[in-house]
């Protein structure tokens, strides 16, 4: 980065003028002539055989264009998945439905109101059967979710790569530690409840099949445009270059738009059948049962340590809920938890999660995806251990961290090489920012007055920014989507003949400010004003294939590709400028919209001059090709491992169980920062979602598989009135796996926060004897925990 770098500075976001004036274009805003609208007929039962489907009333309704059932679509095959372990979802189901909300028929009409009327008129004979929702019941295989198959799809056991002998030795070592005279063993079963992602924009897809050209335009609210293009092509026997996916503005994703959905395929099918554009936009209650959910673990965490705070072993054993069908990543999500199973610590860790099916909607990636769960169990049990031995929770962490001197080259106890880390510096900065000792003193003073104030701390390490091309060899490939290209970043930078530039990139942002950040990288590299740089993303026609935006990967992977492509363009431009200025290439510097000779600012050429030359090959240095553009594929050597420390202060009203979140302090380390403003914004939102899990959100199913909290009336999201302002700062430990030194930040806030809040609430109630409360810490649960502790 140059010394006059715009990186690290603050630039107002380029995407904002449209969005604040209501002129952004989201999928549902797109209107094409002759568009027909879809409504789905969905199962009201969690487990039932489907008998006769009577569509006659719907078909006869004025304005209805077509009604489709599985008989029409089964030839397309089931919904594809990246990790196809377990049963795949039928596009439409006329056999045995496996969760409430499963699509049974699709109605296409001239108008969305009529489509809904017609869908309601479709009569389906269901023969309900017993459902399995409880994870322990599922594990017993008492009721199979899919006839003839075990409910357990896979068990992830860590450390990664350890064989049975090594695992036995590890477990024996931990068992031996438990027998020591100074051993303290703390164990707790905890639930990490299911969540509904709820981006405020519902998912929406508009398919426009153009028979004359045998191609599709697909507008979709997706995080993975290239994969969707590949998938649609695959279903209809087309190449991915016959399908253009446009993900324009995407109104939040948080992982739930990181799937190719059956509705996207079905809408494309209808468009092709009917030879007209077809659109579907989910309703919020429909989304609760047709868009993936997240979390849903029950596990027991055990710490074995000494009375002096040395942890000798950590064990996590539990069950993770996959829902009824495997979609894109489903069974891989707990594996992401395994990656960070030992957190930022160096102690021996044994980790086992059984992935089981239930008669519920599929789970998949929701912000953090496996890592918030892993961090939650680890940091809750570390807190309980600290409490048990009467040690400051910060000191217990400090004693057990992997040392900064172990980097580079540190390998986590789970068997993964980590990039960079300095956990103690980060912890100290957080304690300093929060005024830790004062906080504890204030808490104690409040307690003396009979108030129930608590202070909670948790630290975390994340793994993100996937990642290395070699992941393909671990089975993580997008080949099912006609995308064998794994997780590489990809970017194309082109300088136009007038000296303006376009960067096209395969990311699929949903609010992360890519219009701004990629322009900053290119502008910084070329010394070109940001206003002269156009950014194209989320469009498979314009952008080089990449895998989209998820897993906090865009800056660290595609951003690095953007940086490298920029570097290639600059190198060529430097040769051209040197040729034009009759100077040495080594003396060329870029700034202020052009190039000049170092120490001689008057000896300069503008980007317009350079570009004009580049497009007139006869003026170029001998042997140089015309044009001024470069493509770069970036495959990092490793994922990135951000980390941080969060602290919360709460007060509990023990008469009602009401929790008041008084302060929230976040100290994160995501390496170098391109835009402090955007990074802070990502952390704010991440923390709010973690607090949402800790205090409010809960996807509650009854024993029959009905989702009781499927609308926003009962699925409680935090409002502005429920949250405090956040106090953020950061430490900076650059990564060495990409040239920008950046780590991911999109999920960090969520990974660090839920356990921080729970630790604080338990701290507040420690004098009453409470040691654990399962999330969400709604007043009801908090009050009940107090009663149980008193009993």
């Amino acid at each position, binding site marked *: 980065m140059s010394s006059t770098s715009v990186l690290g500075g*603050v630039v*107002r*976001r380029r*995407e*904002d*003028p*449209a*969005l*604040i*004036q*209501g*002129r*952004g274009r*989201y999928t*549902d*805003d797109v*209107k094409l002539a002759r568009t027909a609208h879809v409504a789905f007929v969905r199962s009201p039962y969690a487990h039932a055989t489907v008998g006769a489907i009577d569509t006659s009333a719907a078909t006869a309704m004025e304005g209805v264009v077509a009604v489709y059932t599985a008989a029409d679509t089964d030839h397309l095959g089931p919904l594809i998945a990246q990790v196809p372990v377990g049963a795949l979802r039928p596009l439409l189901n006329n056999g045995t439905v496996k969760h409430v909300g499963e699509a049974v028929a699709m109605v296409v009409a001239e108008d969305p*109101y009529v489509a809904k009327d017609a869908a309601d008129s479709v009569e389906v004979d269901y023969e309900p059967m017993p459902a399995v929702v409880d994870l322990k019941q599922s594990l017993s295989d008492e009721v199979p979710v899919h006839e003839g198959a075990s409910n357990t799809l896979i068990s992830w056991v860590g450390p990664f790569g350890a064989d049975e002998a090594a695992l036995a030795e590890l477990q024996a070592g931990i068992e031996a530690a438990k027998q020591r005279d100074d051993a303290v063993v703390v164990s707790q079963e905890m639930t990490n409840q299911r969540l509904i992602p*709820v*981006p*405020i*924009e*519902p998912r929406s897809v508009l398919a426009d099949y153009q028979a004359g050209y045998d191609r599709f335009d697909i507008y979709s609210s997706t995080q993975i445009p290239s994969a969707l293009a590949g998938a649609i092509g695959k279903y209809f026997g087309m190449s991915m270059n016959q399908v253009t996916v446009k993900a324009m*503005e*995407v*109104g*939040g*994703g*948080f992982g739930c738009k990181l799937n190719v959905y059956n509705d996207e395929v079905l809408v494309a099918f209808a468009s092709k059948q009917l030879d007209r554009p077809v659109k579907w*936009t989910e*309703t*919020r*209650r429909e989304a609760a049962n047709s868009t993936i959910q997240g979390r849903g673990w029950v596990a027991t965490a055990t710490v074995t340590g000494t009375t002096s705070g040395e942890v000798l072993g950590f064990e996590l054993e539990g069950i993770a809920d996959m829902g009824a069908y495997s979609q894109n990543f489903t069974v891989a999500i707990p594996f992401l938890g395994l990656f960070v199973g030992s957190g930022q610590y160096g102690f021996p860790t044994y980790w086992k999660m059984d992935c089981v099916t239930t008669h519920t909607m599929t789970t998949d990636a929701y912000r953090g995806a496996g890592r918030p769960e892993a961090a939650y169990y680890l940091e809750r049990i570390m807190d309980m251990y600290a409490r048990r031995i009467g040690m400051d929770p910060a000191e217990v962490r400090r004693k057990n961290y992997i040392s900064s001197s172990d980097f580079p080259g540190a390998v986590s106890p789970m068997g993964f090489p980590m990039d960079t880390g300095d956990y103690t510096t980060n912890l100290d900065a957080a304690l300093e920012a929060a005024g830790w000792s004062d906080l504890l003193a204030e808490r104690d003073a409040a307690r003396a007055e009979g108030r129930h104030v608590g202070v909670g701390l948790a630290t975390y390490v994340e793994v993100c920014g996937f990642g290395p091309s070699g992941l393909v060899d671990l089975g993580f490939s997008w080949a099912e989507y006609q995308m064998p290209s794994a997780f590489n970043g990809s970017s194309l930078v082109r300088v136009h003949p007038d000296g303006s530039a376009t960067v096209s990139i395969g990311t699929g942002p*949903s*609010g*992360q400010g890519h219009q701004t950040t990629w322009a900053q990288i290119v502008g910084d590299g070329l010394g070109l004003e940001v206003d002269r740089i156009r950014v194209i993303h989320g469009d498979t026609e314009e952008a080089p294939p990449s895998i989209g935006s998820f897993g906090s990967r865009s800056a660290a992977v595609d951003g690095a590709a953007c940086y490298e492509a920029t570097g290639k363009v600059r190198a060529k431009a430097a040769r051209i400028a040197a040729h034009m200025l009759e100077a040495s290439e080594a003396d060329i510097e870029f700034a202020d919209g052009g190039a000049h000779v170092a120490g001689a600012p008057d000896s300069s050429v503008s980007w317009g001059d350079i570009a004009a030359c580049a497009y007139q090959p006869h003026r170029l240095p001998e042997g140089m090709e015309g044009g001024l553009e470069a493509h770069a594929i970036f495959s990092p050597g490793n994922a990135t491992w951000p980390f941080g420390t969060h602290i919360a202060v709460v007060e509990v009203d023990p008469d009602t169980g009401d929790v008041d979140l008084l302060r929230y302090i976040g100290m994160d380390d995501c390496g170098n920062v391109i835009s*402090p*403003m*955007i990074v*802070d*914004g*990502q952390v*704010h*939102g*991440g*923390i*709010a*979602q973690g607090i949402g899990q800790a205090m409010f959100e809960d996807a509650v199913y009854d024993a029959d598989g009905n989702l009781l909290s499927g*609308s*926003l*009336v009962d699925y409680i*999201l935090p*409002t*502005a*009135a*429920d*949250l405090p*302002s*956040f106090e953020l700062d950061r430490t900076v430990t650059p990564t060495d796996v990409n040239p920008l030194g950046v780590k991911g930040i999109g999920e960090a*806030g969520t990974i660090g926060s839920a356990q921080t809040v729970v630790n604080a609430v338990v701290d507040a109630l420690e004098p009453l004897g409470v040691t654990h409360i399962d999330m969400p810490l709604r007043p009801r649960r908090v009050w009940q925990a107090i009663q149980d502790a008193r009993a």
Partner: protein
Amino acid sequence: MKVSMSVNGRQVSGEAEPRTLLVHFLRESLGLTGTHVGCESSYCGACTISLDGKAVLSCTMLAAQADGADITTVEGLAQDGELHPVQEGFWERHGLQCGFCTPGMIMSAVTLLEENPEPSEEEIRRGIEGNLCRCTGYHNIVQAIEYAGARMRGEEPAPAEWENA
């Protein structure tokens, strides 16, 4: 049935079914797609507009109920190319990420500041509790509204947090 209303200072009319929701009339008949639909239970506030000067949910009104009303949507805030101070505040203070809740949030903030020109942080937070945002944790939305309030009172807004860093 025919409905007529003033939208963003312009008299408009169009055909609507009795059951047509106002938000669909705005989006589909008038092409004003800035007003968004985020839920169906009247909880998210993405569809918030100003109707006769008050923040209301356009998804929880029939178009017929708005016949004769004076409506401002997010598209009508900027005047002669000048952003409304609330829009400016959201831009200056990074009060939006994905932008989907933003039009409703901005309309809620505009009406809040019209009713209470100098709200405390708590009054701002309570004033926008009917607008769900999933991206920002509301932190910078509060900052944005404080910025706008200062501008509308003719005061210099407090510097952004990142300007202090």
